[in-house]
């Protein structure tokens, strides 16, 4: 299935939360209300900087009961590919942007006895979407947010509305001081853990949980915004009969779209599997979370949204 038709949104408000963090509020251009935002859902923004078109996914941080506006929080990344930099530097209140219907690939498990949320840095955003929903359900949960020392107060402010009487902690002492194994080992049976943040954090949670005997089905990772940049390469699109140059700050999917080819995609973060494309020639540098280790080793599929060529040229069946 393909993404729904995009709609127009107007920037209603921009709030600077920290030097590199801004919250953007959007409202529907044509009045009315947005669809109920899914818990843990994200939206895709299409950003047009001259001839360059960027599509970036951002978690919705507004609660399901709020439909007059959609909020996202964007981190200005030093090595930005352009999307977050464009939002931070070029977008102003009143501007109109293109947004796709919210999508949810990171969801709360209804049968969980307890929900353990772990956020790293900007990985707080899906947790901010979960919190009002967990509160509404009266569910048992615990949240740990990892932050740099300077940003501890910022995250504490963001979490404050949900903090009363809850186990919510912001850790500013770095990963080494965060006792992940202790945290996971003291959870009651039936707990599900949800983690969003840098790949190193998500991998640490997954491997620590596995080592402690947690079932795989109780560990949930949100992955997007991972690094998709790398050496430039050429991709031959066999069915379309064209070749595209993939620049170093551009994903394969973006290069395909820039060439006017309508490629399948959904999450744009290597999670959903929608963009899996047969790899006919060349080797892939897999960066997705969808293909299994065996599938990656087989080298017959590539996820165009995050993965790249290992070498100067690949041929894909698109």
């Amino acid at each position, binding site marked *: 299935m393909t993404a729904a038709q995009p709609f127009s949104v107007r920037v209603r408000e921009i709030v600077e939360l920290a030097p590199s963090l801004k919250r953007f509020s959007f409202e529907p251009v044509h009045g009315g209300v947005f669809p109920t935002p899914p818990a843990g*859902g994200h939206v895709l923004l299409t950003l047009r900087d001259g001839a360059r078109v960027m599509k970036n996914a951002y978690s919705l941080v507004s609660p*399901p009961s709020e439909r007059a506006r959609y909020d996202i929080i964007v981190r200005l990344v030093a090595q930005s590919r352009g999307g977050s930099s464009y939002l931070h530097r070029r977008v102003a209140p009143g501007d109109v942007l293109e947004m796709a*219907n919210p999508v949810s690939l990171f969801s709360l498990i209804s*049968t969980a006895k307890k929900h353990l949320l772990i956020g790293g840095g900007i990985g707080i955003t899906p947790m901010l979407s979960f919190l009002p*929903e967990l509160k509404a359900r009266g569910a048992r949960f615990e949240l740990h947010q990892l932050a740099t020392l300077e940003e501890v107060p910022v995250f504490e402010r963001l979490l404050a509305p949900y903090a009363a009487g809850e186990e919510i902690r912001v850790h500013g002492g770095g990963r080494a001081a965060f006792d992940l194994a202790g945290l996971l080992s003291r959870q009651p049976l039936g707990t599900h853990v949800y983690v969003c943040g840098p790949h190193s954090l998500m991998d640490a949670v997954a491997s620590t949980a596995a080592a402690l005997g947690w079932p795989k089905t109780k560990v949930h990772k949100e992955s997007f915004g991972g690094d998709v940049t790398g050496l430039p390469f050429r991709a031959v699109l066999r069915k379309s009969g064209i070749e595209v140059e993939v620049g170093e700050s551009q994903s394969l999917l973006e290069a395909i779209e820039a060439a006017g080819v309508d490629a399948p995609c959904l999450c744009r973060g290597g999670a959903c599997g929608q963009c899996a494309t047969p790899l006919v020639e060349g080797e892939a540098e897999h960066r997705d979370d969808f293909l299994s280790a065996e599938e990656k080793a087989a080298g017959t599929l590539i996820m165009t949204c995050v993965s790249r060529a290992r070498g100067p040229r690949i041929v894909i069946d698109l």
Partner: protein
Amino acid sequence: MTVQFKPAETFRDTFTYKKSPEDLLRFPFPFPEDSYMYSVNIEPHVRGGPTAAFQAQFDVDEHYIAECKERARVLAEDPKRCQVLPHMLTAEWDSLEMIMENLAADYPEHFTLSKDGDAWTWVNRPLGIQQSFIFGKAETLPCGPFEYITRQAQGDFTLQDQREDNLFVDGGMVTTQADWSLEFDIGMSFQEWHGPVPLAHEKGVFDRALKYLLRLQYGQPVRRLNWTMTVNPRLDTSPENYPVWGPDKASVTPENVAEKVHLRVELQTLYRLPRSNAILFGIRCYLTSVADIAKVPKWRRRLHRVLRDLHPDIATYKGIPRYQQMVVDYLAPLDDGSATSPGIAPDIEKIEA
């Protein structure tokens, strides 16, 4: 044109259910071609389609009031036809919101939903209901939110929870079913509840369908049509009541076959729900007698060809071998052998008197 409800018609005992000519033409005829085999025949559920049954998200037709009354009767006799497991409460509210908002948007003359924060008021004019309640507070409704809203909708509904890369049927309102039991199936996984279907497992239909549904996206509902046949216009053909309706099969004769035997179509819709990430599955049942089908030239030709050539395993699974040949024999002289257009549209504007 405003629909004329027929509140007194019945779906049991006296069987006074009848279709008006307009209602016949809006029937979602299930065969897009002259033969039938299982496939993953899923398409986006967008408003508009080959017949008027596809114009709304949740279709309301002239049988609305009578069907809601029949549902209330079945529930009074057997309350277990509506069950929801406790972890599905969020999905119940999601469903209530989804159905109320769509009914109010598609049928403003019949339904109104007004909101002041979490304080909602629902008006259902055909059923004479006005209800104020607090969204999220189940104690402010006369029954659970899922039961409350599905008592006011045509067709069955189930709730599928998504976990462990599978779907589990963890709730439902099932009173108009084609011989399956919620009481038996509740809690089952996708493969378990489809276990009895012949041929389709071998074709990999269910593996592909499950993969597709696990990725079903919010705001992009999908639909498919399914079908079987039922003797008499009986909505409640449940395993629980088999002694009541099973013997009907023996009552079909060459003389009464056209009036007795009904093509039973399910317009199945699937919605991803926002808060719970569950899937709301609508199974809307439409009954049309063979005599009514015969009034539409394309449909009678095609039904004849489909039933004549149907795979015997499918016929057995659908429970129709006992009278299948009688239907074929009735339709054969009405099939002039000419070609039929692709798709399910009736290809006529009016039913000739």
